């Protein structure tokens, strides 16, 4: 299908391109930006007047809940949510049921996602069998099946000898290991240690839960040379360790979630279960450090940490409520809000959800690596068209995700969010469009 995106402001964060231009798309690729061939006959014209035309978002952390937790989310519902949020590629962690430790499961997920053609899916394989922290998975087989890295999801490896060997083995073949730095023992609480947890009588997760794990991981990276991506940092002290590790030249990257970027433990209020999240929300100083680190590039990417949670699992006392919040449909708006609050150029803001996460994925993307997260003539046509001036209010019931729990519901925040997706294209086909975009 030939599509012309007409009259929008085209931003390619990786190159700094920012100009009003038409974008011609054919056979899944970008035919031209600005220079549309005279004989180009589009079957569809998307009117992008007043809109930004940018690379589709790349989300490094989104749970789809399949297989095993279909009552909380299905591939179709969650990939529809991704498309509605302008997300054209996402990475899903292996904590499904069964866990993604068998090539067949990974192939099945990839196959079904391809059939839906709503969003590209890049699964993380389990680093250890059943995430048990004891036996390594068949990483080569899993990579062949489509895994772009290996992860323990939320289950820390307690045995540091196993962790060291996992990193050694992954380093042998150049696989990236994705770890959320949290000590298994210190991390058992339900809220960040601090004045709020003390006052509310909630068991605390100290900053040391993150820094102890980080120090271990960083030292093992030094020894093994493994490439590690740190998932969802939560503390100022964690940011300082990351900054030092990067300055040392270690092959480490990191991301932060939309929740930790915008919220603090004070938002728990009177035990609001929507604020039960992992990692837990920390204090204002931590949030400020995370925002600054994302702005200066110390933290590479912003992620939705999308986790659909069934209704009943949040209708529980805070400590018993299931952690997590929906996020795919909020990622763009919360990136824009952070960028505006921080006074960043739009291209820098968008880089943190497009070209920077693609750099984290690196060679694991194969032939996509050269053009994903970018708008380049001849590159893949993964595109989002959004109105940066439009605001919207989050009404959980109207989200496409099966997960309706979010700390950002208008009812709770009283705040509207900036930026509305008009159209999302994946490999040159329309995966989502709003009514306003339908002109031709």
């Amino acid at each position: 299908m030939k599509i012309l995106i007409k009259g929008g402001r085209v931003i390619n964060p990786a190159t700094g391109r920012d100009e009003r231009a038409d974008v011609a798309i054919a056979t899944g690729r970008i035919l031209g930006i600005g220079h549309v061939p005279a004989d180009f006959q589009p079957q569809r014209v998307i009117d992008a007047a007043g809109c930004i035309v940018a690379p589709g978002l790349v989300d490094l952390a989104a749970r789809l809940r399949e297989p095993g937790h279909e009552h909380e989310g299905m591939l179709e519902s969650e990939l529809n949510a991704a498309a509605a949020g302008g997300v054209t590629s996402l990475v899903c962690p292996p904590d499904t049921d069964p866990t993604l430790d068998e090539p067949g499961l990974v192939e099945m997920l990839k196959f079904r996602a391809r059939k839906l053609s709503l969003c590209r899916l890049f699964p993380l394989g389990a680093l250890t069998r059943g995430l048990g922290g004891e036996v390594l998975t068949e990483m080569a087989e899993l990579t062949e099946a489509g895994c772009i890295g290996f992860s323990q999801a939320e289950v820390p490896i307690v045995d540091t000898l196993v962790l060291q060997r996992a990193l050694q083995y992954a380093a042998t073949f150049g696989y990236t290991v994705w770890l959320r730095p949290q000590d298994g023992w210190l991390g058992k609480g339900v809220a960040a240690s601090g004045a709020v947890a003390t006052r509310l009588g909630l068991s605390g997760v100290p900053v040391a839960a993150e820094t102890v794990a980080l120090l271990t991981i960083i030292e093992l990276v030094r020894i093994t040379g493994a490439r590690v991506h740190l998932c969802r940092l939560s503390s100022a002290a964690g940011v300082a360790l990351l900054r030092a590790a990067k300055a040392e030249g270690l092959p480490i990257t990191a991301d932060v979630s939309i929740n930790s970027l915008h919220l603090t433990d004070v938002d728990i209020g009177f035990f609001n279960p929507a604020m039960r999240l992992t990692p837990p929300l920390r204090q204002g100083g931590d949030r400020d450090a995370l925002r600054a680190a994302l702005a200066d590039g110390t933290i590479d990417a912003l992620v939705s940490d999308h986790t659909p949670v069934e209704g009943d699992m949040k209708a529980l006392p805070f400590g018993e409520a299931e952690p997590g919040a929906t996020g795919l449909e909020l990622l763009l708006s919360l990136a824009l809000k952070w960028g505006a609050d921080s006074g960043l150029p739009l291209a820098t803001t968008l880089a943190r959800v497009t070209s920077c996460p693609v750099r984290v994925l690196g060679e694991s993307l194969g032939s996509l690596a050269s053009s994903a997260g970018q708008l380049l003539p001849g590159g893949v046509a993964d595109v989002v068209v959004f109105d940066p001036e439009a605001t919207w209010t989050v009404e959980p019931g109207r989200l496409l995700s099966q997960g309706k729990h979010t700390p950002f519901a208008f009812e709770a925040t009283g705040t509207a969010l900036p930026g509305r997706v008009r159209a999302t294209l994946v490999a040159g086909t329309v995966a989502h469009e709003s009514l306003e975009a339908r002109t031709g």
Partner: protein
Amino acid sequence: MLHRRNPQLNRHGELIHLLSIEGLPRDVLTHILDTAGTFLSVNDREVKKVPLLRGKSVFNLFFENSTRTRTTFEIAAKRLSADVINLDIAKSSASKGESLLDTIANLSAMHADMFVVRHSESGAPYLIAQHCAPHVHVVNAGDGRHAHPTQGLLDMYTIRHFKQDFTKLSVAIVGDIVHSRVARSDIHALTTLGVPDIRAVGPKTLVPGDLRDMGVRVCHSMAEGIRDADVIIMLRLQNERMSGAMLPSAGEFFKNYGLTADKLALARPDAIVMHPGPINRGVEIESSVADGARSVILPQVTFGIAVRMAVMSIIAGNEA
């Protein structure tokens, strides 16, 4: 982010639930204590009843075992002429897999007027207050480590009874503060009522420095903690904390932090000794002190009934 108003107060600032002492204005606390004073005499009458809650149904919902607290709530409700239904949920619905809110919905359908709730999870009574019918009142009878507001209030009643003026007192709270809902409620009540010197006393495993955020002085030495104190509140040491990574043994705890006659001599000569009960003799307190002249442990229990009557009658009289 927006914050909803304190869920235990209505638009007029009147108490409709009692969930925590935190955030309650001083005049609300004083009103409860004054009202409790008027009920104290009811307990001395031959017919120990007033008709304030006649025709009302009070459900005692105890998701966690307790005999003493449940009994005092039952007595208080009956002296207000309410019908009392005791539900030992730890042994019934929850074990059949019914969710907390389903239990609440079912009991609401039985036309409950008040739920007295004890639960092992901090914040559970808030969840219940947010989900029950508007005319139903909720009293927190202890949730996790968070709050035990009626215990806090009866402790304040006791202190006021023996010491009158809060604004000149030194109060020491000794023992397992970090896991104690009683300590949290006491600290909020004492700060609200204007006590200038509150000390939290115990080892760092049970009294971490974070507690300073609540407005207390953290003392790891018993001598420093109780010196010249006017009030000493000893907390119960739960069995599961007596040996393990929190403490090596009950004996070693007693040696360092148990209240003995010798240590009590460091406090002011007219200091009173309190304990929320049940007491572990020889673990947190020596028998001669628990039973001694300075102990007000039994008056606490008596005042507890009057305070619970006051709380129930006040919230029942206010509309959401």
